[in-house]
C-alpha cells in the first residue's frame, strides 16, 4: 500500500492507483473530461492537472501513478487558472454554443466543468469553422462540431468492444472523428452497440430516439438486466412519464461492465408490433374482446376435462424470455397439474438438452464468462458471436489485438471470420472430427490439414484457453460432438463456456422444458409466448390444435389462430428472475407500469391454474436445483 497526501488529507491506496483514483477515494473531486472509469487513462484533455511537491510542472492526475509520501494539491489559484484556460481552448475550438444543444442543462460534462469553474464567458472567441455532421446511422448522429477530441468513443470502440470502427484523423484543428477510413458511419463497420454514444461527454454523439426527450434530471433510471439473450447484461432502463426513453449499459454491471449490443440497446426501442390489451375469445370464428373472467372460464370449460389425461391433455410451450417465476408456474400447471407429456419451451432444448444431460453424469462442467476476459486463446464453435450473445463476442474480440488467437469453427459464414486467426469450416455436424484432430495434434501427432495444424499450434502455446460453444455444436445429430469437445478441452486445460439460447434458456433446461414440441394426441395447446416472436415452424405445428390458447403481449399470426388470447406484460413491465449463461441468478425489474388490462405472465398462468383447480407453489428457486446444471447456478 501507498500513502499520499491530497489537499492535506492522507489516503492509503494500493500500488498502481492513479492520483485521480486516490482523490476519488476520499471524495476530493478533480475535474476531468477525457477520463472515464471504464476506460484506460488517456491524459488528453489536461483538465485534471494537479500540483505535486517536487514536480516542476502541473501533472495530469488521471495518468500519474500515486507514489509513497506524494503531496498533491488539487485546488490552487494557478490550477484554477490553468483549468479555465483549458476549458476556454476547448470552447473556442468548435461550435460549443449551448442554447440549442441536446445535452445542455446538466448532461454535458464540458458545460458542467465550466460551471464548476464559475465561468461566465469565454475569454477566447470561437474559431468559426464548419465541421461535418454525419446523420447516416440509424441510431445515432455524429456531430463533429460538438466534439472535444477526448477520444472516449474511440477508446470504448476499441478497448471495450474490440470493433475499432471509430478513429481520429488528421492533426491539430483538422482532427475529425471518423468511421473506418472516413466512410459514413451508417455504412461503416459499426455494429451499432452504442457504447460510444453512452460515453460521449458532450453532444457530439447523439442518440436519435432519446435526443431532446429529457435530461438526466427529468428521467427515471431503473437498474435491471437485459433479457435480449442469455448473457444477461446489467442495464439501466431510462423512462419518463411511464414511457421508454432509452436503455443504457451499467458500467458497474458484473456481467457486461457497461457493454450492450444492438439487440439489447436499440432493438427494443424500435418495437412496432401491435399491443394486445384485452383478453379475446373466438366466437363464431371471430376473436372478440371479453373480460378476463370470461376468457378464463372459456379456458377452464375446455381444459378442465383434460386434467390428468396425460398425452391427451394440453400440449404447452413457453418462451424462454419469460421470468423463472412464470416458467415454474407454467411447468407446475401443465406438467404436474395436467400431466401433459409435451411441456416445453420454444427452444425445445436445442441449445441446452445435451449439455444438461452430460452434466447429470459429470456435474457442472462449464466456466464463467470471466474466463473469456482473461483468456490467452479463444475457440468458438457452433455460434456466431457477432450476431448472438454479442457482448460475449466483444470480450473475445477486444483481447484479440493483444495477440490472443481466435479460432472460429463454423460450417456457415461467421461474422468473426474476417478477424479470426483460423476459420475452420467443417461439414455441418462434423465438429467432433475437428476436435479429434485438434486433440491428436495436442498429443503431438502430425495432422495433414494445414488449417487445423495452424490452429493447433496457436492453441498449443496457450495457458488459459477458452472454448465458447453454441447450439450449432450440440443441436446436430452427432451425439459425440460435445464429448469430443470436452475431451479436447480437458487435454489442453481449456475452460468451456456454453452460450445457450434466450434469456432464461438455462432455467427452462432446469425445469425440463427442453424437449421437442409436437401436438400428438393432445386435445388443446397453450402457448405462453409473452413478448417473444413466434416462428413459422411452431405455427405449422399448432395448426391442428383442437383448442388453442395464446398468452401474448403482441398481435401476431399466433393470436389470430388462437381460440383464447390472454394479454400479458412486456419485458419492461414485469419483474422476475433470470439465470444467465454462466449460471448467475439475476433479477429483471419492471421499469414501466403495465398497460391497463394486461397481467404479468406469472399472474396470467396462476389465474388459469386457479380456474382449472390446480394448486401451484412458489418454489421456482428450489426447482432450479432439482437437477444438475451444465454450469453452476448461484
Amino acid at each position, binding site marked *: 500500500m501507498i500513502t499520499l497526501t491530497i489537499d492535506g488529507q492522507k489516503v492509503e491506496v494500493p500500488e498502481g492507483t492513479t492520483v485521480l483514483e486516490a482523490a476519488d477515494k476520499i471524495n476530493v473531486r478533480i475535474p476531468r473530461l477525457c477520463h472515464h472509469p471504464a476506460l484506460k487513462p488517456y491524459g488528453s484533455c489536461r483538465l485534471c492537472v494537479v500540483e505535486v511537491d517536487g514536480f516542476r510542472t502541473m501533472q495530469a492526475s488521471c495518468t500519474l501513478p500515486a507514489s509513497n509520501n506524494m503531496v498533491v494539491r488539487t485546488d490552487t489559484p494557478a490550477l484554477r487558472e490553468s483549468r479555465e484556460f483549458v476549458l476556454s481552448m476547448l470552447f473556442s475550438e468548435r461550435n460549443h*454554443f449551448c*442554447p440549442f444543444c441536446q445535452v445542455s442543462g446538466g448532461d454535458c460534462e464540458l458545460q458542467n466543468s465550466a*460551471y464548476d469553474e*464559475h465561468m*461566465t*464567458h*469565454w475569454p477566447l472567441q470561437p474559431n*468559426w469553422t464548419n465541421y461535418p455532421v454525419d446523420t447516416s446511422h440509424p441510431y445515432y448522429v455524429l456531430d463533429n462540431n460538438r466534439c472535444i477530441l477526448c477520444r472516449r468513443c474511440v477508446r470504448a470502440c476499441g478497448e471495450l468492444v474490440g470493433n475499432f470502427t471509430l478513429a481520429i484523423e488528421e492533426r491539430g484543428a483538422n482532427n475529425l472523428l471518423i468511421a473506418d477510413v472516413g466512410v459514413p458511419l451508417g455504412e461503416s463497420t459499426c455494429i451499432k452497440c452504442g457504447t460510444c454514444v453512452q460515453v460521449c461527454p458532450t453532444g457530439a454523439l447523439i442518440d436519435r430516439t432519446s435526443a431532446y426527450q429529457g435530461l438526466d434530471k427529468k428521467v427515471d433510471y431503473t437498474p435491471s438486466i437485459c433479457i435480449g439473450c442469455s448473457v444477461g447484461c446489467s442495464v439501466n432502463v431510462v423512462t419518463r412519464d411511464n414511457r421508454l426513453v432509452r436503455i443504457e449499459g451499467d458500467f458497474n454491471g458484473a456481467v457486461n461492465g457497461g457493454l450492450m449490443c444492438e439487440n439489447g440497446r436499440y432493438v427494443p426501442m424500435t418495437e412496432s408490433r401491435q399491443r394486445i390489451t384485452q383478453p379475446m375469445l373466438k366466437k363464431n370464428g371471430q376473436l372478440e374482446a371479453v373480460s378476463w373472467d370470461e376468457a378464463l372460464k372459456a379456458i377452464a370449460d375446455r381444459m378442465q376435462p383434460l386434467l390428468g389425461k396425460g398425452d391427451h391433455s394440453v400440449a404447452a410451450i413457453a418462451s424462454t424470455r419469460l421470468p423463472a417465476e412464470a416458467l415454474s408456474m407454467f411447468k407446475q400447471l401443465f406438467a404436474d397439474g395436467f400431466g401433459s407429456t409435451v411441456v416445453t419451451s420454444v427452444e425445445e432444448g436445442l441449445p441446452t438438452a445435451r449439455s444438461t444431460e452430460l452434466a447429470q453424469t459429470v456435474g457442472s462442467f462449464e466456466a464463467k464468462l470471466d474466463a473469456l476476459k482473461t483468456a490467452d486463446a479463444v475457440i468458438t464453435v457452433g455460434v456466431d458471436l457477432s450476431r448472438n450473445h454479442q457482448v460475449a463476442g466483444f470480450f473475445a474480440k477486444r483481447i484479440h489485438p493483444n495477440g490472443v488467437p481466435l479460432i472460429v469453427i463454423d460450417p456457415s459464414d461467421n461474422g468473426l471470420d474476417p478477424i479470426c486467426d483460423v476459420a475452420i469450416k467443417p461439414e455441418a455436424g462434423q465438429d467432433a472430427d475437428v476436435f479429434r484432430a485438434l486433440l491428436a495434434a495436442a498429443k503431438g501427432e502430425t495432422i495433414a490439414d494445414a488449417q487445423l495444424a495452424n490452429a493447433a499450434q496457436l492453441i498449443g502455446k496457450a495457458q488459459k484457453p477458452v472454448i465458447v460453444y453454441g447450439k450449432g455444436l450440440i443441436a446436430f445429430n452427432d451425439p459425440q460432438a460435445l464429448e469430443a469437445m470436452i475431451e479436447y478441452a480437458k487435454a489442453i486445460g481449456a475452460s468451456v463456456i456454453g452460450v445457450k439460447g434466450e434469456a432464461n434458456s438455462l432455467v427452462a433446461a432446469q425445469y425440463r422444458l427442453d424437449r421437442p414440441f409436437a401436438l400428438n394426441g393432445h386435445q388443446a395447446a397453450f402457448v405462453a409466448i409473452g413478448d417473444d416472436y413466434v416462428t413459422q415452424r411452431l405455427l405449422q405445428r399448432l395448426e391442428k390444435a383442437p383448442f388453442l390458447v395464446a398468452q401474448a403481449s403482441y398481435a401476431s399470426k399466433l393470436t389470430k389462430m388462437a381460440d383464447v388470447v390472454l394479454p400479458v406484460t412486456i419485458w419492461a413491465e414485469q419483474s422476475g428472475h433470470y439465470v444467465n449463461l454462466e449460471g448467475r441468478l439475476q433479477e429483471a425489474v419492471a421499469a414501466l407500469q403495465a398497460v391497463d388490462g394486461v397481467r404479468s405472465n406469472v399472474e396470467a398462468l396462476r389465474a388459469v391454474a386457479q380456474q382449472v383447480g390446480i394448486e401451484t407453489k412458489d418454489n421456482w428457486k428450489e426447482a432450479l436445483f432439482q437437477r444438475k446444471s451444465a454450469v453452476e447456478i448461484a
Partner: protein
Amino acid sequence: MAKPKISSDWMAGCAGCHMSLLDMDERIIQIAELVDIRSTPITDLKEPDASGVDVGILEGGVNNSANEEVAHKMRARSKILVALGDCAVFGGVPALRNFCGIQEALKRAYIDAESVDESGKIPSDPELATMTKVRALSEVVPVDVFVPGCPPDADVIFYVLAELAQGRKPELKDKLLHWD
C-alpha cells in the same frame, strides 16, 4: 446619495432578455426603488444620458455598424457595462451565421427561403447599416459583468440588478449560472 442610474439597449438579439427582465413581475418595483431607470428600448427615452449612467446593460451581439455605435456609446457613457444574455456574452444564435458567411445567410433568408417567391431580393438600401461578422460584446468593447443565459432567468437578472444597485459586483455561480 442619489440612486444609481441604469440604461439598457438591445442589438443583435431577440429581445428575449428584456422579456425575461419584465418576467421578474412585481420585483421590478423593488428595482425601481433602488435605481433610477433611464433609457431602455421598451420605455420612451432611447439613449443613455450624455452625462453618463452608472450601469449600462446591452442585450444581443454586435453584427453591424449600427450595433457598433450602440455598443461604443453605451460603453462610453456607463461606469459598469453588463453583457446580458448569450448573444451579448458569446454571440449566441445570430453568431451561427459566422459559420456560413454573410452572403450565404442573406441568400438563404431573402431568396431561398420557402416563403419567398421569384421576386425575392437581398435588401441593399444605402441607409442600411453595414453588416459585419457577429461578435460578442466583449470583442468590441471592454465588458465588466457577464450574465449568460438564453435568456437569463428573471431571478438571475433581479440578483444582478440588485447587487449592482447596492454597489456590489454580482457573482454568478451554481443555480444562477447557466448558458442555455
